[in-house]
C-alpha cells in the first residue's frame, strides 16, 4: 500500500502543526501587546518573537507543500510574506496585523482539524487570507483578482478528506494530461534547470515520487528572490502526483541528482555510520544488564543521535525519503533515550544496533522498501518507550503513536532546530548550488548564526539533562571540539610533566631562580595557561578553574619569585598530575583533591601576594592580572575560532588508525626491499667484473688478430720467394709445408702452423692460377686476410660494447644510489611511525614516584636520563609496568626515610635515577638508587623461608642470592606494605622482561644502593653498519660503535704478553685480531683445539701481519679496542634479525643481518665483546661459567681449507671447485698465473694451490717461480694438475717447488687424499 506512508506522513505532519499553534498565538499576542503599548511595533524591535513566528510560518508553508496540503501552504506563505515585510521594516505590526494573522492561525487550526477527515475548502480559505493580507499590505485591490486567479489555480477547491477515494481517483488519470499544464508554470517561476528535474518525476516510484514532488515544489527562496511575484506555487496538486504511472516502481531519484552530490552524501553517511558503529560498540560493551543512564551514556547516545540527525537532514535534501523517514523515526527514539529515559538495557542497545544496520542498508539501497523491518523496529521503539513510561513518569515529549502512522520527519515538534535546518536546506536546494547548500547546512548546524533561537533551543535541550547530573559537563559539548581539545591537552600535559621533571632533576635545594629555570617556568606557565584557555573554550570548567589556580603559582614563580624550592616544584608537578586526571575524566570533579591542592597553591601565592604587596603597589599587581586575562580571552577566542573554522571544513585532515600488524608488514616489506636492493649491489659488482673481463677478452682478440696478420705477412713473404718454384712445379699443400719447414722458416712460422695450412689450402688456387702475382699483392683478396680483418672489426665492436656496458653500469649505479637513499628514507619514516621517545611513559613514571614519596613521607629526587631514547611503542607499553614496579620497589625498599638517611650520613633526599640508553641492538634501562641496598642476610633468611636449606643459602654467592629475588613469592619484608613487599612483582618483572626477550640483573651494595639493569632487544631495528671481513668471514659492526678506521704500522703494536696494545692517536688500547676475538679464524697455519694453542695462534697471527694492518678502533661506553680486519666491504643499512628461535642469545653479537644473496652476516656487539675480552673483575669467572654452560668441549672447529685453483680451462676449474666444495673447502679460482697473483694479493693466502702448466699470460712454471721469490707465498703447497705425463715436466715442476704432480684425468679420492696430506690434515 504505497499510499499509506503518505497518509501517515500527513497525519504526523498535522500533529506537528498543532504544536506550533500555541506558540504562534502566544507570539502574536506578545507582539500585539508590545504594539498596543506604543504606536505600533517599531521596526527592528522584538525581532526575536517575530523571527520565531516567521520561522514557524515558513515551516508550515514548506512542510505543507511537501506533504501535499497546498492550501495550507499558500495561506502560511501569505503570512510569512507579510512577516518578511515586517522584519524588513517595510511594514508595521499593528493591531490589525495581529487580527489578520490570528485569523490565519485559525485557518491553520481548521486544517489541522478537518484535513484528515472532512477535507478543507482550501480555495475559500486562501481567498480570504490573500485578500486580508493584501489589504494589510496596502496592495492595489485591482490586481487582486489577477493574483488570486493565479494562486487559486494551484490549490484544489477542497483538500484532504478520505485518502482512499483520492487514491482510486488518481490512478484513473493519465499522466500526460496533468503534466502538461504544470510545465509552463514551472518555467514561469522556477529557474530553468528545475524543469528536467521535474520531468524526472514521471519515472519515479509512486510512493516516493509524491514526496519528492512535494519537495521539489517548495518555493520559498524564489519568493524571497523573486520578491514581487507573490505566492507562486507550482501546480503540483494531488492529481498531478497521481498522474505518475504506478508501474515505474524502481528507478529512483539518484539518477535525477547530481552524482557528486550523491557521492558526498554517501561519503558523509559512511563517516556517520562509522561513528555510530563505534558508539554502539562502546555501548554494547558497557551495557550487559539494565543500568541507569549515566551522563557518559547520554553523551554516547547524543553522539549517535547527532549522526542520525545529520543523516536525516542530508538525505531529505537529496530526496532520499526512505532514509530520511526512517532516520527521523530513529532520531525520535534517540531523543527520548537521551532526554527522558532513565536506564539503558541491552535490549535498547541491540535495538539501536539494528536501527543502525537498517539505516545502513537503506542508504546502501534506497530503492528497496524495508517496510517490514521498519515496522518491527518501530514497534520495538514504542514498546520500550511505553514500558519506561508506565514505570515512571510518562515521557511528555513523546506523543502516542497512532497505529501504523508514519509521522512526517520534517516537522517533529521537538525538533524545531532540525526543521529549521531542513527548511534552510530546502532553501539552499532550490538555489541550485551544491556547494553553498552544503555550507549552509553546516553553518546552520554548527555555528550560532542568525538562526540563533533555533540553535539555543537545541543546545538548551541537550544540556538540560547534563545539568541534572552535576559534574558532568560533557553532554552538551561538541565532540569535535573535545577531540581536538584532548589532543592539545595531551601535548601540554606532557610538556608540563617533562618540564617539571627537568626542574626536579636540577633543583634539589632552595635555589635562586636562574635564567634557565625561568625559561622552563615560562614554558610551564604557557602550557598551563593555554590549557586553561582551551578548557574554558570547550566548557570544561573543572579543568579551567583548577588550571587557573595552577597558573597563579607558575605566574608567581616566573614573574616574582626570587628563589625556587623543590617544594614548589613538587606542587607544580602535582598540579600537572591533577590536571591530567581532570582532563582524562572531566566527569569526576575530584573536589577534595582540587580543594586541597588549591589551598596549598593559594597558601603559596597568597604568601607571595603579601610579599609582593610590600614591594610593589596594588595597581602593579592588577595590571599583569588584567593583561593576562586579556591574553586568556584572546587565546580562548583563538581556540574557539580555529576549532570552529576547522569544523566547518568539509574534510579536515584526519588521523588514521592503523593496526600494528599492518604497519609491521609494511616495515618488514621495506626491510625486504632493502635486502633485495643489496642483491642489486652485488649484481652490479658482478656486472662490472664481467664488463672488465669482456674488455680483457677483446684485448686478447685484437692481439690474436694482429699476430695472425703479422704472421701471415711474414709467411707470404717467405712463400713468395721459396714456394713459387715448388708451386710452379705443381706441388701439393703437403709438399709446400714441407718446403716451408725445409727453408728453415723462423719461429713465427712454426708457431703459425695452423695458419700455415690454412694459407696453403686457400692460396693454392690463386697461386696456381696466377703464378705471375706476388702473394703480397694478393693479400687483399685472400680469405685469410678477410678473416683477419673481420677479427679486427669484431674486436672494435666488442670494444664499443664494453664502453656501452660501462656507461650503463655507472647509470645503474646512480639509480641504485638514488633508490637506496629513497628506501632508507622510507624505512626511517616507517620506523618513526612505530617509535616514540621515552616521554611516552616518563610522565607516568614521574607521577608514580611523586605520589609514592608523598605517601611514604620520603624525600626522593627522581631523575630520568636519556629521555629521548626512541623505542617501539609496543616496547614502551610492555616495559612501563616493570619499570614502574622497579621504581616503586626502589622508593619503598631502597630509599630510607629522611631521619634514617641523615643518621647514616646521607643527604636527606634520596636519589632515584632511571637512565635509558641504547647499546648495540639493546635498549638498556638502569634504575639505581642510593638507598640501603639489598641485605644479603635478609635474602638468605627469605630464601630459607622459601624452602632453601640453610646450608645451601649460606653457601650461595651474592649473585645467586640476588637472582633469588626474581623468584615467585620471594619477599624480604617480614611485613607487607601497601606499596610493595608482597613478594609478587619481581618475578612478574622478570617475566615481563623475558617476554620482551630481555634480561634483568641486579647489583647492590649494602648501605650504598642498588642498581637494576634491564636489557631489552630492540626489535625491528635498522642500523647503519660497516661490513668487513676478518679471517675469511664477513662481519658487520654498528657505525655507532666504530670510532675510527685506520691503517697502523706494525711498529705501533706494543707486544704482549699479557696483551698486545696499540697506540692510536692519544690513546693506547688493546688490539685484537677480530677473528680470534670471535673465536673463529680460518686459513692460517696453526689450528689449535685448546685455549693454549689459541693464544699461540693469536701471537702467531700478529707475527704474520702485513706491515700496515687495517684497524677498526671500536668503543662502547668508556672502553676502547682496536680490531684488525682484513678488508672493508663498505657501509650498509643493516636490518637486524635475531639469531633464530634456538640461539636466542649469542654472546658477542647483537644479531645477524641478511645480505642480498641470502647469506647471513653476524653483527658484532662491541660492548659485550669488550666486556668479556677486556676483563674486569668477575668477568673471568663469568666467562668460565658461560663456557661451561654453553660448551661441552671448548674447541675451535677446524676451519675449512682455502684452495686456489689456477687453470685456464673453465670446465676444469669448475669440476675441481665442485670437488673441493664438497669437502667443505673454500675455493678461489684464477684463470692464469697473473690472475692468480692478483687474487693472492686481494683474497689472502690459501692453504693450497692447484696449478696447471699451460696457461696464457703466465704459465705454471713461471707462476711457481713467482711464488718462490715472495716469502709470504713460498710456503704454500702447490699441486700441479696437468695432462703432461712426461717425466721431464714433472721434474721441472718439482724442481720449482711443487709438492705434488697429478695427471689429468685424476682420481678424486687420491687427489683429496693428497691435498689432505699436503695440508697436514
Amino acid at each position, binding site marked *: 500500500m504505497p499510499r499509506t506512508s503518505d497518509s501517515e506522513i500527513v497525519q504526523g505532519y498535522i500533529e506537528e502543526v498543532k504544536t506550533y499553534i500555541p506558540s504562534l498565538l502566544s507570539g502574536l499576542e506578545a507582539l500585539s501587546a508590545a504594539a498596543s503599548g506604543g504606536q505600533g511595533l517599531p521596526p527592528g524591535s522584538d525581532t526575536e518573537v517575530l523571527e520565531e513566528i516567521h520561522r514557524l510560518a515558513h515551516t508550515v508553508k514548506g512542510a505543507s507543500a511537501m506533504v501535499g496540503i497546498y492550501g495550507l501552504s499558500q495561506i502560511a506563505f501569505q503570512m510569512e510574506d507579510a512577516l518578511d515585510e515586517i522584519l524588513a521594516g517595510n511594514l508595521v505590526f499593528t493591531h490589525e496585523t495581529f487580527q489578520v494573522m490570528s485569523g490565519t492561525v485559525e485557518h491553520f487550526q481548521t486544517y489541522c482539524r478537518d484535513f484528515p477527515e472532512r477535507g478543507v475548502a482550501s480555495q475559500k480559505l486562501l481567498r480570504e487570507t490573500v485578500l486580508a493580507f493584501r489589504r494589510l499590505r496596502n496592495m492595489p485591490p485591482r490586481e487582486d483578482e489577477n493574483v488570486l486567479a493565479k494562486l487559486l489555480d494551484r490549490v484544489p477547491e477542497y483538500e484532504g478528506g478520505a485518502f482512499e477515494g483520492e487514491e482510486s481517483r488518481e490512478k484513473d488519470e493519465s499522466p500526460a494530461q496533468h503534466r502538461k499544464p504544470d510545465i509552463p508554470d514551472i518555467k514561469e517561476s522556477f529557474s530553468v534547470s528545475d524543469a528536467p528535474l521535474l520531468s524526472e518525476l514521471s519515472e519515479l516510484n509512486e510512493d516516493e515520487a509524491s514526496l519528492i514532488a512535494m519537495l521539489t515544489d517548495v518555493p520559498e527562496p524564489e519568493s524571497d528572490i523573486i520578491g514581487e511575484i507573490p505566492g507562486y506555487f507550482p501546480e503540483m496538486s494531488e492529481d498531478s502526483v497521481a498522474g505518475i504511472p504506478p508501474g515505474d516502481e524502481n528507478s529512483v531519484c539518484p539518477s535525477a541528482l547530481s552524482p557528486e552530490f550523491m557521492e558526498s552524501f554517501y561519503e558523509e553517511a559512511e563517516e556517520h555510520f562509522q561513528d555510530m558503529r563505534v558508539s554502539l560498540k562502546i555501548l554494547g560493551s558497557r551495557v550487559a544488564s539494565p543500568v541507569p543512564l549515566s551522563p557518559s551514556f547520554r553523551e554516547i547516545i547524543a553522539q549517535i543521535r547527532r549522526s542520525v540527525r545529520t543523516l536525516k537532514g542530508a538525505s531529505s535534501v537529496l530526496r532520499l525519503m526512505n532514509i530520511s523517514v526512517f532516520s527521523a523515526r530513529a532520531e525520535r527514539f534517540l531523543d527520548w533515550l537521551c532526554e527522558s529515559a532513565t536506564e539503558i538495557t541491552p535490549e535498547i542497545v541491540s535495538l539501536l544496533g539494528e536501527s543502525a544496520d537498517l539505516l545502513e542498508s537503506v542508504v546502501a539501497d534506497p530503492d528497496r522498501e524495508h517496510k517490514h523491518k521498519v515496522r518491527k523496529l518501530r514497534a520495538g521503539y514504542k514498546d520500550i518507550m511505553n514500558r519506561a513510561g508506565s514505570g515512571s513518569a510518562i515521557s511528555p515529549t513523546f506523543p502516542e503513536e497512532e497505529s501504523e502512522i508514519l509521522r512526517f520527519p520534517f516537522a517533529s515538534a521537538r525538533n524545531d532546530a532540525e526543521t529549521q535546518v531542513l527548511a534552510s536546506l530546502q532553501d539552499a536546494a532550490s538555489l541550485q548550488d551544491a556547494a553553498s547548500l552544503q555550507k549552509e547546512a553546516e553553518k546552520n548546524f554548527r555555528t550560532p548564526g542568525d538562526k540563533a533561537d533555533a540553535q539555543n533551543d537545541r543546545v538548551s535541550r541537550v544540556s538540560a539533562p547534563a545539568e541534572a547530573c552535576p559534574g558532568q559537563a560533557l553532554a552538551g559539548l561538541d565532540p569535535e571540539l573535545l577531540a581536538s581539545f584532548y589532543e592539545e591537552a595531551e601535548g601540554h600535559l606532557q610538556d608540563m610533566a617533562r618540564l617539571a621533571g627537568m626542574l626536579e632533576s636540577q633543583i634539589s635545594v632552595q635555589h635562586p631562580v636562574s635564567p634557565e629555570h625561568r625559561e622552563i617556568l615560562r614554558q610551564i606557565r604557557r602550557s598551563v595557561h593555554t590549557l586553561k584557555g582551551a578548557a574554558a573554550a570547550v566548557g570544561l570548567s573543572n579543568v579551567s578553574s583548577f588550571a587557573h589556580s595552577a597558573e597563579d603559582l607558575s605566574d608567581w614563580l616566573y614573574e616574582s619569585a626570587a628563589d625556587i624550592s623543590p617544594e614548589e616544584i613538587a606542587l607544580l608537578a602535582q598540579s600537572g598530575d591533577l590536571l591530567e586526571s581532570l582532563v582524562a575524566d572531566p566527569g569526576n570533579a575530584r573536589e577534595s583533591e582540587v580543594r586541597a591542592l588549591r589551598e596549598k597553591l593559594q597558601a603559596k601565592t597568597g604568601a607571595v601576594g603579601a610579599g609582593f604587596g610590600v614591594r610593589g603597589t596594588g595597581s602593579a599587581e592588577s595590571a599583569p592580572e588584567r593583561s593576562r586575562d586579556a591574553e586568556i580571552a584572546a587565546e580562548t577566542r583563538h581556540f574557539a575560532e580555529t576549532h570552529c573554522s576547522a569544523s566547518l571544513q568539509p574534510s579536515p585532515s584526519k588521523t588514521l588508525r592503523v593496526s600494528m600488524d599492518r604497519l609491521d608488514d609494511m616495515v618488514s616489506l621495506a626491510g625486504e626491499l632493502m635486502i633485495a636492493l643489496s642483491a642489486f649491489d652485488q649484481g652490479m659488482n658482478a656486472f662490472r667484473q664481467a664488463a672488465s673481463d669482456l674488455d680483457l677478452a677483446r684485448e686478447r682478440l685484437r692481439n690474436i688478430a694482429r699476430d695472425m696478420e703479422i704472421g701471415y705477412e711474414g709467411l707470404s713473404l717467405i712463400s713468395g720467394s721459396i714456394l713459387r718454384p715448388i708451386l710452379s712445379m705443381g706441388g701439393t699443400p703437403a709438399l709446400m709445408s714441407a718446403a716451408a719447414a725445409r727453408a728453415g722458416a723462423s719461429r713465427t712460422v712454426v708457431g703459425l702452423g695452423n695458419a700455415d695450412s690454412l694459407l696453403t689450402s686457400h692460396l693454392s688456387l690463386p697461386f696456381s692460377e696466377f703464378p705471375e702475382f706476388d702473394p703480397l699483392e694478393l693479400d687483399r683478396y685472400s680469405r685469410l686476410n678477410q678473416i683477419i680483418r673481420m677479427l679486427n672489426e669484431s674486436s672494435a665492436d666488442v670494444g664499443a660494447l664494453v664502453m656501452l656496458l660501462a656507461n650503463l653500469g655507472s647509470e645503474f649505479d646512480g639509480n641504485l644510489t638514488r633508490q637506496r637513499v629513497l628506501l632508507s628514507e622510507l624505512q626511517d619514516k616507517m620506523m618513526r611511525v612505530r617509535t616514540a621517545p621515552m616521554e611516552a611513559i616518563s610522565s607516568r613514571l614521574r607521577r608514580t614516584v611523586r605520589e609514592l614519596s608523598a605517601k611514604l613521607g620520603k624525600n626522593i629526587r627522581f631523575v630520568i636520563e636519556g629521555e629521548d631514547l626512541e623505542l617501539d611503542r609496543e616496547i614502551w607499553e610492555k616495559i612501563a609496568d616493570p619499570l614502574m614496579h622497579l621504581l616503586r620497589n626502589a622508593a619503598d625498599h631502597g630509599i630510607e626515610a629522611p631521619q634514617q638517611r641523615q643518621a647514616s650520613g646521607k643527604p636527606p633526599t634520596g636519589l632515584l635515577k632511571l637512565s635509558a640508553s641504547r647499546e648495540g641492538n639493546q635498549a638498556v634501562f638502569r634504575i639505581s638508587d642510593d638507598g640501603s641496598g639489598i641485605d644479603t642476610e635478609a635474602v638468605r633468611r627469605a630464601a630459607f623461608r622459601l624452602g632453601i636449606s640453610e646450608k645451601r643459602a649460606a653457601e650461595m654467592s651474592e649473585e645467586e642470592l640476588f637472582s633469588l629475588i626474581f623468584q615467585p613469592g620471594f619477599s624480604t619484608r617480614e611485613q607487607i606494605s601497601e606499596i610493595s613487599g608482597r613478594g609478587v612483582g619481581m618475578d612478574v618483572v622478570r617475566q615481563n622482561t623475558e617476554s620482551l626477550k630481555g634480561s634483568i640483573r641486579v647489583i647492590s651494595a649494602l648501605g650504598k644502593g642498588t642498581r637494576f639493569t634491564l*636489557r631489552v632487544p630492540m626489535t625491528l631495528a635498522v642500523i647503519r653498519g660497516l661490513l668487513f671481513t676478518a679471517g675469511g668471514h664477513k662481519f658487520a659492526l654498528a657505525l655507532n660503535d666504530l670510532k675510527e678506521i685506520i691503517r697502523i704500522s706494525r711498529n705501533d703494536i706494543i707486544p704482549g704478553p699479557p696483551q698486545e696494545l696499540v697506540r692510536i692517536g692519544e690513546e693506547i688500547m688493546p688490539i685484537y685480531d677480530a677473528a680470534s676475538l670471535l673465536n673463529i679464524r680460518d686459513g692460517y697455519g696453526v689450528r689449535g683445539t685448546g685455549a693454549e694453542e689459541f693464544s699461540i695462534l693469536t701471537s702467531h697471527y700478529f707475527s704474520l701481519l702485513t706491515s700496515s694492518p687495517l684497524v677498526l678502533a671500536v668503543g662502547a661506553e668508556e672502553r676502547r679496542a682496536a680490531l684488525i680486519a682484513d678488508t672493508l666491504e663498505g657501509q650498509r643499512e643493516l636490518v637486524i634479525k635475531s639469531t633464530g628461535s*634456538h640461539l636466542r642469545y649469542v*654472546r*658477542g653479537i647483537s644479531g*645477524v643481518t641478511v645480505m642480498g644473496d*641470502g647469506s647471513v652476516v653476524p653483527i658484532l656487539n662491541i660492548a659485550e665483546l669488550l666486556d668479556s675480552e677486556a676483563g674486569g673483575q668477575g668477568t673471568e669467572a663469568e666467562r668460565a661459567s658461560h663456557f661451561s654452560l654453553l660448551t*661441552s668441549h671448548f674447541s675451535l*672447529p677446524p676451519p675449512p681449507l682455502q684452495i686456489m685453483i689456477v687453470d685456464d680451462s673453465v670446465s676444469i676449474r669448475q669440476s675441481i671447485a665442485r670437488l673441493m666444495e664438497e669437502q667443505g673447502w673454500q675455493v678461489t679460482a684464477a684463470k692464469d698465473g697473473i690472475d692468480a697473483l692478483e687474487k693472492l694479493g686481494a683474497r689472502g693466502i690459501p692453504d693450497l694451490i692447484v696449478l696447471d702448466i699451460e696457461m696464457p699470460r703466465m704459465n705454471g712454471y713461471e707462476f711457481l717461480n713467482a711464488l718462490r721469490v715472495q716469502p709470504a707465498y713460498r710456503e704454500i703447497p702447490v699441486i700441479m694438475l696437468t695432462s703432461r705425463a712426461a717425466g721431464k715436466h714433472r721434474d721441472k715442476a718439482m724442481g720449482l717447488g711443487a709438492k705434488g704432480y697429478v695427471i689429468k684425468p685424476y682420481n678424486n679420492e687420491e687427489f683429496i687424499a693428497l691435498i689432505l696430506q699436503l695440508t697436514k690434515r
Partner: protein
Amino acid sequence: MDTDISLEKLIAEIDGQIGSETSPLSGDHAAPTALRGPASARSQYITFFLEEIFLAVPISSASEIGRDPAVTRLPNLPEWVLGVSNIRGEIISIVDLKAFMGLPAHRGKKIRRFIVLSDTLMKVGIAVDRIAGIFTTASLSDKDRIHSSPYKEAGEISAFISGVVAAGQNFPEVSERGRLLNILDVKKLLSSPRMTAFRSEK
C-alpha cells in the same frame, strides 16, 4: 638453486621407491599387519645417515628437509653449533648432532643435507649426510616392532634414542641396510639443557 626440496615431494618420491621395492615382498607376506606394539598410531619417520649411524626422526617433528645450506658461523658457540643459515627468510641454527652427542665432530665438512626439527619453542637444523627414506610403523609386525632403547649405559647418545628397529622381514628398508635404526627422541633433544642454553644472557 636446488637447495630446498619440498618435504611432500621428497616423501612422495621416497614412498614411490619404497613401493616399488616392497611390492615383491609384500606379495609373499600379504598385506601389512595391523598396528600393535608401543607406537600404536601409524606414524612415519624420516630415516637418514649421520656418517655410519642410521637414524630416524618422526615426520611430525621435522618441518623441512633441504640441501647445501650456506652456514654462517657465529662466535662464542660450542663446537656442535655449526652456525646459522638463512632458510627461506628464517634464520635457523644448524647443529652437528654427532658432536652434540659427544661423538667425533663433523669437522668443517661440507653440509650436504639438513633436517629442520621443531617443537613449540624452537627450530633447529641438524646436519645430515644422507637421507635414506621413510618408514612407517604400519609396515611392522609384532616381531620387529620398535624396541625400547637397548643402550643401557648413560651416554650422551643413548639419552636421545627412544627406541630401535632391528632388521626384519617386514622392514626391508632396515634389513637392507643391515643396521639398527635408531629413533631419535626429538622432544627430549630439543628440550635438553644444553640445547636450550641460549635462551637468554647467562
